[in-house]
Each structure stands twice: as structure tokens, then as C-alpha cells.
């Protein structure tokens, strides 16, 4: 299985390559990717250097252009596709069918991946995208169990990539009504759900208040772990009790499932977190590299090492990590 690492800047790209990622995914500095954050992402000059660095080390660079073109602005998404192809992308990670069609027609040889934002969760949807746009890989939404994924792989020739580690969110991959309610933005239209300009943290009465566009979404006691300031992870009064109404901040951790994922034919494991620092990238990539190597060398004897789990837990959002939808015995 390949290891796919996030990079929000050149330093993170280099850290990922040096820590053993097989491929790095990145985005341009605009709304064409789902991590459109202030000061984050690559200029074209940085990308040229990053691609050269990855090539020298025999690794690949994937371009995420995985938001949905907004009415009247499709040209920005086409321009992003042009830039990625010009800069030597090994693959484009796309979600919008219009953008997929453009990329396929204009660059028939370009390798295309269907983004997690494309929300293809079953073989028929994936096969349709292959027939129409010639996608070579699909990144699966984080809603399927390992059994679901195994069945799906049997029914498609498209390579399957799944998430192995990172923050989770409860939206139907990309389309978030919650964030649209609070900020008017969501990942699929603006590349961000809780833009920093709408976020305020204020100390009050010894606690820290988190507000999103003026809405109080959480209040943290001094030593309480915090999460990203999104509406879904806030705590609200419901029937007289203050709690996480929708979701407790949680991180996915599929470390213990690696041999199973390899056995059913998953081709790549992706790490979330283009918004995180090179320090995160270096440590999380190195951990998953060690785990993947161990799982490949002796799958039957594979056991996640305590220090791997410790490193991942340290970087996790929220006080708990989970196997997410991969393992749902009740299903």
C-alpha cells in the first residue's frame, strides 16, 4: 500500500518525502482546494521546487483541486487544472464532474483520482466515473466499513485509497449545511467551513469561549482539550444538558487495521492534515511508514507498537481516536 501525505507548504512536502511518504498531495493558494486557509498552500514557484524535490527522491506529487466550481467561476477551476498539468502533477484529485470532464478532454494522458469530496461510496458510482472520465483511483468517503470496502473492491477496477489517520468531520463529505448556516461557507464551495475571519476565541470568567460568526459554539475550562472551531464539534444545551450535540472532536486512527486493508486490496492510505505543520507531517508520516513496513513484512504477526500509538495520539484532535466507520460491529 502506498502512503499519501498532506503538505500545506514546501517545508511540509520535504518533511513528508524525507519521512517516507510515497506521494504528497497539495493545493494551490485559492478556493479550488478544500484547505483554503489564510497563509496556507503553495505558490507556483514553491510547487516547481516541491515537484523537483519529490522527483529526485522518486516520489509523486498529487494536486488536490477538489472543491466544486462555483457558478460563473468555472474558469478558476480549469486554470487550476492547467497549472497542475503544467507543473508536472502525477495525478489530479478532483471532485466536480465538470472539472473532471475538462481535465479528461484537455489532458487525455493525465492520471485522475476521484476526491473524497466526490462522495462515491459504491461500485456503480465509481464505475460510472471511470467510464465517463477515466478515473484511475477513488478516495473513499469515511463512511464505509472494511467489509463494505472489500465488497466494493471486488466490483471495480479502479484503485481504492482510504484515510488512515486524521481529524474527522460529520458532513456528507464536502456538503455541509451546518457550516453554511453559521458562516455561509462550506468545504465544497469555499474550501473552508469555518474561515478564520469568522472565528474568535475570548477568555471569559477563567474559561475560553469559542465563537463562530458571533455564535457561541463552545466554552473550555482551563485544562480541557480544545478542538477545531467548527459548529459540528461545539457543545450546546440540549434538553438541559450541555454536551457535544453532534460530534465530539475525534481523530481517525486505522493503525491496527493496516494488514486487513492491505489484504482486501486497498492500494493507498491517506493522512489528513494539509493545515498542519511540517513537524506533524514528519512525525505522522514516519509512524505510518514504520507501521506499513511492519504490516507488509509480516502481516500475521503485525501489532501496532505502543510508541506509534503514542505519537499519533499526541497529534490527534480531541481526546479520543477511533477506527471510525471502518469497524462498526452493530452495522
Amino acid at each position: 500500500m502506498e502512503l499519501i501525505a498532506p503538505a500545506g507548504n514546501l517545508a511540509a512536502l520535504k518533511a513528508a518525502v524525507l519521512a517516507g511518504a510515497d506521494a504528497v498531495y497539495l493545493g494551490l493558494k485559492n478556493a479550488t482546494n478544500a484547505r483554503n486557509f489564510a497563509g496556507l498552500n503553495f505558490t507556483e514557484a514553491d510547487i516547481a521546487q516541491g515537484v523537483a524535490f519529490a522527483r529526485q527522491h522518486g516520489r509523486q506529487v498529487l494536486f488536490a483541486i477538489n472543491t466544486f466550481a462555483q457558478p460563473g467561476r468555472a474558469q478558476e477551476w480549469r486554470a487550476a487544472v492547467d497549472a497542475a498539468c503544467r507543473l508536472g502533477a502525477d495525478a489530479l484529485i478532483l471532485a466536480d464532474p465538470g472539472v473532471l470532464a475538462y481535465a479528461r478532454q484537455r489532458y487525455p494522458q493525465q492520471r485522475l483520482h476521484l476526491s473524497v469530496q466526490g462522495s462515491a461510496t459504491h461500485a456503480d458510482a465509481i464505475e460510472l466515473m471511470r467510464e465517463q472520465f477515466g478515473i484511475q483511483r477513488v478516495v473513499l468517503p469515511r463512511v464505509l466499513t472494511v467489509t463494505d470496502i472489500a465488497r466494493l473492491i471486488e466490483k471495480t477496477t479502479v484503485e481504492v485509497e482510504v484515510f488512515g489517520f486524521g481529524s474527522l468531520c460529520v458532513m456528507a463529505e464536502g456538503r455541509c449545511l451546518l457550516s453554511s448556516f453559521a458562516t455561509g461557507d462550506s468545504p465544497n464551495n469555499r474550501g473552508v467551513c469555518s474561515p478564520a475571519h469568522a472565528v474568535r476565541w475570548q477568555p471569559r470568567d477563567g474559561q475560553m469561549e469559542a465563537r463562530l460568526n458571533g455564535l457561541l459554539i463552545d466554552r473550555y475550562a482551563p485544562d480541557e482539550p480544545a478542538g477545531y472551531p467548527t459548529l459540528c464539534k461545539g457543545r450546546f444545551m440540549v434538553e438541559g444538558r450541555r454536551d457535544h450535540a453532534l460530534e465530539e472532536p475525534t481523530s481517525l486512527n486505522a493503525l491496527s487495521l493496516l494488514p486487513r486493508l492491505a489484504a482486501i486490496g486497498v492500494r493507498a492510505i491517506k493522512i489528513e492534515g494539509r493545515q498542519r505543520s511540517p513537524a506533524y507531517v514528519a512525525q505522522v508520516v514516519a509512524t505510518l511508514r514504520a507501521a506499513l513496513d511492519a504490516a507488509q513484512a509480516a502481516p500475521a504477526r503485525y501489532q501496532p507498537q505502543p510508541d506509534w500509538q503514542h505519537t499519533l495520539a499526541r497529534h490527534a484532535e480531541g481526546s479520543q481516536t477511533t477506527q471510525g466507520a471502518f469497524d462498526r460491529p452493530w452495522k
Partner: protein
Amino acid sequence: MSVATFGAVVPPALLSPPLCAVLELARLGRWLQPPAELEGRSVALTLTDLGLRHGLCCRDGRFRPHGVADAELSLSASLADVLLLLAGQVDADTLFFQRRLAIAGDTELGLVVKNWLDAQERPAWLTRLAARWSPM
């Protein structure tokens, strides 16, 4: 006098120049170049364990002292964590989740500062030196 009371006794105006000097040295050493987005912006930094507060701003591409009270962004962390951040040894989101880094004021400016720090490539000697401080 304990270290914690030091900051309460020495006026912030006297403390800002040393911090600026450190950042200026880093800038001259070419490993912390302020980006255009920081031009004219101001930040107050509180070293929570020492009880020290510094204000600084970025003008004409240089770091200069600035009043604490009217800074647009306020960041608070221990001296050790600030050094780890400056050396690129720790992830700011990780510190934030663990409540070791507090941010108030202009969050977008905070993100610009964070992403700027993340994007800087540190010289090898600094990385080696920093690796000897406990990494987390």
C-alpha cells in the same frame, strides 16, 4: 524575586526590544522572513510561565516593538513552547488542542502567523540544536 514576578516589575516596553532583537537576528539570518501579509500587523506574545508580555509589529519588512494593549492578535504559551514553535519543532494545532497555546483577537492574523512559521525552512544547525530540547 521569582521569575514569574519579573515581568510584573519590568515594564513591557523594556522587554519588547530583546524579543524583537531575537526575531530581527532570525530575519537577518534569513530563516524567519516576514511575509507581505504581516506588514503593518501587530502581535502581543505572553510567555505564560515567566509572566512576560511582549508586543511587536512588522514594519518595512522588519520586526519592531509595539504596544501590548492595542495589538491585533494575542498569543500565549510557555517560553519552551514558543522556542519549539520558532524552531519548527512542534505543531501549533497540537499545542492548541492541548491548551498549551492560546490565541485571542484576530484569528485570521493568527493563522497567517502560524502558516508563515510553518513554511519557513530552518537551518540544519537550529534543527539539531532544537532536537536536544525535549520535543513535546
